[in-house]
């Protein structure tokens, strides 16, 4: 089974997770087209 990155779609939630996990945020801006 293929692995996938578990992307969040909300920067505020990512900041919360970053505080809890003490990890930096990887923020990817992408064009879906």
């Amino acid at each position, binding site marked *: 089974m293929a692995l996938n990155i*578990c992307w969040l779609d909300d920067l505020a939630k990512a*900041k919360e997770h970053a505080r809890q996990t003490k990890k*930096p*945020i990887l*923020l*990817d*801006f*992408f*064009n879906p087209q």
Partner: protein
Amino acid sequence: MGAVTYPNDKVVKFVDYNFVPVQIESSNTALMNQFKVTWTPAIFVLDADGNEIHHVVGFLAPEEFIPTFMVAKGKYYFNAEQHPEAQGMFEAALRDYPDSDAAAEAVYFMGVSRFKATHDPKNLRAAYETLTAKFPGSEWTKRAAPYRLIPE
């Protein structure tokens, strides 16, 4: 990125282990403007307060993506004055991806991190010497040029 790099198993494991990943569509003009993004892919590394640590514009293949963001994570620790952790990330990038475009930056920040941890300027001189020997054309070698004046 979505077709080649992000589906790569090594990239998936690396990202999930080291980062909180968040993906924002370019239609989100508020965030695009906040981060002054005018072209994608644009990838930022932020601390938990949203402060930018590193950013890259344009495609990165898996073998460049991983060392690029190893160095970025090293800079995250470096900014937090967590020098053993920072040096661990720079060392890993140099050990696992010695020929990547990120390797010269890893050498540079390794030297600076060692200097900040020990206050011994010989670490800066050593970084300059490694850069001139291994990466003579790199911008990081030019940025380290003043360290050649530090006595051996």
